[in-house]
Structure formats: C-alpha cells, structure tokens
C-alpha cells in the first residue's frame, strides 16, 4: 500500500500554492468561526463542571477507613486471614478476618498514620507473602485508604515454559485490549493527520462511566459497559463536532492541533481526577474468582470474557473495513483524502464515523481494562503511550497496523517480565517504541512516504 504524492502535499503546507492562506485564513471568517468555537469550548467546560457538581466524593461521606482485598490469580480470594490495624505508636484498633471474597475493612477513629499488618501464617497452603507483612499508611481526612499485600501463589515463580505460556496468554489479552483502544487512534491519524494525545482519556472515560453506572447506579457490569460505550461514542462525536471539525475548517496546522489535543488531554485527565478521586477502584459484582485451569495456563472467567469480547469485536472491525461500504470508504479516506473526496465520498461524514467508532472501541477497552486492572484516573494516559508504541510499530494511519502492533506490544510487554522486574514492564514497552523508531519508523505495515 503506497500513499500517493498528493497526500503528502496536503500534509505539507510549504508546498501548497499559497502558503500564507492556510495559516492566516480570511480575517472575517475567522472571527465568526472563532466565536462559535469559543462558545463550544465553554459548553464543554460547563458540561464537565456540571458532572463534577453532581457527583460528590464517595469516600468523604463515610469517614476514614482502611480496606483491601486478598486474592491471588491462581487460588482466587483468600478467606479467613487476620488483618490487624494499629496506630503509629502501637495501640491496636481492630483485628478483622477476610470474608469469602477476600475483602476486609477497618473503620478508623480519624485521619493520620496507621500500621496495617497481616498474619502471614494463616495463609492457605501454596500461598505465601511477597514482601513485608506490615504496611505504614497515612490516611487523609474523609478517605478510604486501600492497602494491598502482595501474595505469591506459585504461578509466578514456577518458571520455565509454563510461565512463558501463561505470560503469552496474559500478553495476548493485554495486546488485544491495546489493539482495540488504538484502532481509533490510528484511523483518526490516517483520516485527519491528527496525532490525538487525548485518545487515552477516551479510554478512561469509558472505564469511569461504567464505574459510576455500576457502583453508584447499581447496574450490573454488562449494561454498565453498554452505557459506557454509548457515552464514549457520544464523547467521540462531540470531540469531532465541537473541536476538530471547526479547527480543520479554519486551517489549523497539524502541530497546533497536536498541542490542542495535549491541552484537551490535560484538562480532561485532571477533570476526571476531580470527579473520580485519585485512588484505584474496582467494579462491583465482577469477582473474578478462581482461575480456570487450561493445563499450560490459567485464566479467570473475567480474563477469558475479555479475550473473547476483544477477538469478536476486532474480527467484526476487520470484516467491516474489508466488506462494507463505509469500511472501504474509511480505508480510502485514510489512504488519500483528496482522491477519496473527488470520487464522491463524503469525507467529513467518514471522519465523524471514525471518531464515533474509535471512541466507542476505546471506551469498551477501558471497561475491560478496568475489570482486570481496576479503574484509575490516569489509566488511559498510561495506556496511551503503549498505544502509540503499538500504532507506530504497526504503521501510523493503517487500521490493520494498529491490530498487529497492539498485539505485539501487549505480548512483548508481558513476556518481558520473564527477564525484567514487573514494575519495569511499561518501561520496556516505551523502549520498544524508541527502538522501532530507529529501525523501522514506518512500522510493519506502513509506507516510507509518511515519515518524511
């Protein structure tokens, strides 16, 4: 697949017949369009603030406590283990026993420093404590502080081929998620030339909306996920209609658009932190329970569902791109926008659909990621860099490149824990990105013209 030279010309205003026209625009037109855009930006801002006003912090209503969940991937929740909470000077406050879901919670008399300790001897056979049996925590006023103890269930240090297979399967699950989230990122780049740094926030919005519907609204996770995907799609449409289409009309340069997307990402990310608070929280009713044994590897029901959902969705996307009219139009616009426009494709409509689809996929990916790794306010931003790694590896702007690249990055990141410590696995993914830029900047499926 090659990109016709005309596409490069469009991206590079230096070679257009009148370089100044694209930059300055006509003054009168710019004024009215500017006011409209401002109005829309304000609307978006007020919409966000309204959400912030409607959802008071959950924890602040309850008073201080420390909570946690004891579980391992292999043996599921750990029941019947004593957890003791004491003040910093050693006065014991309470001792509780984990319930059948491995959960425990101790209400506290007030904010301040506390020492949480676990009875390591009471752990079931095959499960051992990884790290110190005590944790020092400082509880903020009104906060419910989560405390986690690392547990080893033998699945990690069994080593050898078994562990590699397990990591491969985990990597496939993670890679499918990255691929699903980054299809939109790649198609948006292909159709509009925009490197959208705010794409990670679409992932977070999906996960956070599902969390509010699930935990605050009390719906089970499946309808919550569906609502999150619909909200995600709406946010995608709003993105395109309120910000990017007007900016394209004014002839905003690609670098300016890129910095605008950075600003949007920053504003959304911290708005989400205000609404959602800074800690990680999990969905209700998604007890992943004991892992199913498949011989060489083990998977919880939730992970299995995640893999099946992602495969079905991604195959659906591939079929759509290959067979349907709109799919072909997407690939055509991505390949050469001017040629597509002159052959009668409504380019703006195609771009809108790409945004809606990409944002919906990102939201779904966010929900699935939230199920496996808990929901956090900056989960999308952290995933964004791996998404960039995947998209760059596969080839920026190509839809299938996002699939191939995302999968590769996911597997690579998980498998790397065979060699490097677990907390460095994201670093390895980012290193991979830089290596790709050195060796093959156009990616696996990309073409050389794009990197100019």
């Amino acid at each position, binding site marked *: 697949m090659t990109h016709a030279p005309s596409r490069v010309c469009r991206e590079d205003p230096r070679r257009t017949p009148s370089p100044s026209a694209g930059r300055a625009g006509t003054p009168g037109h710019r004024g009215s369009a500017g006011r409209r855009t401002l109005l829309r930006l304000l609307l978006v801002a007020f919409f966000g603030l309204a959400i912030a006003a409607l959802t*008071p912090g959950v924890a602040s209503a309850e008073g201080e406590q420390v909570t946690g969940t004891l579980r391992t991937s292999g043996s599921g929740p750990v029941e019947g283990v004593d957890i003791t909470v004491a003040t910093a000077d050693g006065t014991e406050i309470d001792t509780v026993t984990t319930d059948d879901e491995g959960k425990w919670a101790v209400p506290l008399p007030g904010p301040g420093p506390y020492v949480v300790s676990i009875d390591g001897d009471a752990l079931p056979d095959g499960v051992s404590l990884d790290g110190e049996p005590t944790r020092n925590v400082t509880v*903020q006023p009104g906060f419910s502080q989560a405390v986690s103890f690392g547990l080893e269930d033998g699945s990690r240090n069994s080593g050898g081929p078994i562990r590699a297979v397990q990591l491969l399967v985990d990597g496939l699950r993670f890679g499918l998620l990255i691929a699903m989230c980054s299809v939109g990122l790649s198609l948006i780049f292909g159709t509009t030339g925009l490197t959208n740094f705010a794409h990670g926030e679409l992932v977070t919005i999906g996960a956070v909306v599902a969390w509010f519907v699930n935990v605050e609204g009390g719906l089970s996770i499946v309808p919550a996920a569906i609502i999150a995907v619909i909200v995600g799609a709406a946010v995608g449409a709003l993105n395109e209609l309120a910000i990017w289409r007007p900016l394209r009309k004014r002839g905003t340069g690609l670098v300016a658009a890129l910095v*605008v997307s950075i600003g949007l990402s*920053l504003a959304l990310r*911290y708005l989400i932190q205000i609404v959602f608070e800074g800690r990680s929280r999990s969905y209700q009713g998604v007890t992943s329970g004991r892992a199913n044994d498949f011989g060489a590897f083990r998977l919880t029901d939730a992970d299995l569902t995640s893999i099946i959902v992602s495969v079905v969705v991604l195959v659906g996307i591939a079929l759509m791109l290959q067979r349907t009219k709109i799919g072909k139009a997407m690939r055509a616009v991505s390949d050469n926008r001017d040629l597509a426009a002159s052959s009668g494709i409504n380019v703006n409509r195609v771009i809108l659909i790409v945004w809606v689809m990409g944002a919906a996929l990102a939201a779904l990916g966010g929900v699935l990621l939230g199920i496996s790794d808990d929901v956090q306010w900056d989960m999308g931003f952290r995933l964004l*860099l791996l998404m960039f790694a995947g998209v760059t590896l596969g080839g920026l702007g190509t839809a299938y490149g996002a699939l191939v690249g995302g999968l590769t990055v996911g597997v690579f990141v998980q498998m790397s824990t065979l060699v490097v410590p677990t907390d460095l696995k994201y670093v390895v993914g980012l290193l991979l*990105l*830089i290596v790709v830029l050195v060796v093959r900047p156009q990616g696996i499926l990309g073409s050389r013209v794009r990197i100019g």
Partner: protein
Amino acid sequence: MTEFLDALASGGKAALGFQAIFICLLAVGLNMHFGYTGLLNFGQVAFAMLGGFGIGVAVTKWDLPFGVGILVGLGAAVVLALLLGLPTLRLRADYLAIATIAAAEGLRLLFKSGTATPVTNGTQSLSGFSGGFTDLCPWDPTRTFRILGARWDGRDLWVATVGWTIVALCCLLTWLLVRSPWGRVVRSIREDEDAVRALGKNVYAHKMQVLVLGGVIGALGGMINALGTGSLNPDNYQNAYTFLAYAVLILGGAARVLGPVVGAVILLFIVSFTDAALRPLIENGVIPEGLLTVPDVARLRFVLVGILLMALLVFRPQGIFGDRREVMLDAR
C-alpha cells in the same frame, strides 16, 4: 479582605519563587526547541529530572562535591538529548513528540521502580543534597524576610536569587544565539528545512545542537526545583509540567527571548492566586463541599492550564508578545 490580600501575596510569591523559575527554565529550553527550531519536545521534564537527580545522586550516594553533582546532571541531560535525537531528528515532528513523551514517562517509571531504588530512593524521596548550596548563601538562611506581603525564609530567597540569575543568563544566551548566523540557520530550519538543506547547511547537526542546548537549560530548571523543594521524588517530575511549560511559552509568546519569563510569572501568579483564593472560600463554606473540595483545587490548576493551552492555540497562537509570522504552526 485579608484573605484576598493573602491570596494576592501568595500569588506574588509563587510568581517569583522557585516553581516559577523551574517552569520558566523548562520553557526557555522549549523556546529553543519549539519556538526557534520547531522541534516538538514533549519530554522536557525528563531533562529536568536528570538534572535534579544528577545532583541528588552524585552528592548523597556517590559522595561527590556539590559542583561535580551539577556537572553530572548536565552530562546526563546531554546524553539523553543525543540518545533521543539520533533516531528521531530525521523523522517528522510528531515522531519526536511521541519518542520524547515516551522517554520522559519511561524514565520516571524507571526512577520510581524497585530496581532503581538503591540509587534514586524511588518513591521514598532523596534528600540532604542541598547542603553545599545553602552553605554558599551570603545571608543567614534561617532568617525570615518580608517581601511584598509574603514571608520568605533566607533559603527560599537564595534559591530564587540564583534561579533568576540563571534565567537571565539563559535569556542572554538565547538572545546572543538567535541573532548570530547560527540562529538564522536554526530559524530557517523552522520555516523550511529543505531550503536550508539546499543551501548546504547540515540540518541534522543544527537540530541536534538545539536539542542538547535546550535540554541542558531544562536540566538547570530541574536542579532549581530540586534545591527549592529540598527533596527529589520522580513524581515531582510528572509530564504535566512539560505541558505547563508549553502553556507558559505560548502564553508569553514563542520565539521571543523574554516570552517564557513573562509567561511563567503571569501563569504562576494566576494559578497560585486562584489556589489561595479558592481554599478559604471552600473552608468557609462559600463554595459547597459537594462542588469542590480542598484537594480538588490542586487538580483544578491543570484543568485550567489545559483549557488555557487549547484556547491560546486556537485564538492567539502568538501569545502576548509573539509575532504571528514567527510561530511554528505547521507540521514538517
């Protein structure tokens, strides 16, 4: 009313304090990269982190004198610039953007990780490295001064004095460089890389020199931040600070020598003033708890910065003092 005056004073202190200097130096470096040369460096904070940790690690872990620590920090920044520049400077602008933001986030995670903890102290902060700096203070570092209604202790004042001197020197350097023949080449690279190449100039080498120079200025900013806070934690170098520096640069005016300085003073004043003005309003119940809580105020500043960045780029990309013709808006 006293609260309003206090908020004004605290805004004034922030606009002149070490945080303004930190952001300002990041932005002066970015002005070199983005303003004059058109390089999209989204990982400026990584240079700052290396600068800060250069001093911290050299002084506390390797028992080197303070001056050598500065050299270690600057050296680390140069190495990072070379490593990042080699693969990406030949590619289009957004590849450098992605690579630098990835490097910044990767380095922060690396410095936080268990593997690096013996050297960087990870999440437990490194401190006790600034003694050599405080010893140089010509006045009593524990004395309290009152300036513009705000209280400064002698140490803060010393950091600010040294910091603004460095800012002045960096601005002078920028001014001298951009009006030299070298500066004209660099600015032409921003306007039309191919034309510069056709004139027989080595575009790649010039871009690399700019990347190193701007990175070193960023590292100086990171050192001031480390000395100002007195402790080093990788989380003090979140990549949101890079974008704060972009907001400062674009607000003041990119490709203007004093743009970052003006931008930093104004933006830091606005941010700390709203911070300090909102807190008593929330504590006295003027703003209900359900709408905004005290911890939210610190987050609100980044929301404001994000919206400001978008609004500036859309409506006034040249900022306060910039020249529209000089602002790099198009990809290359």
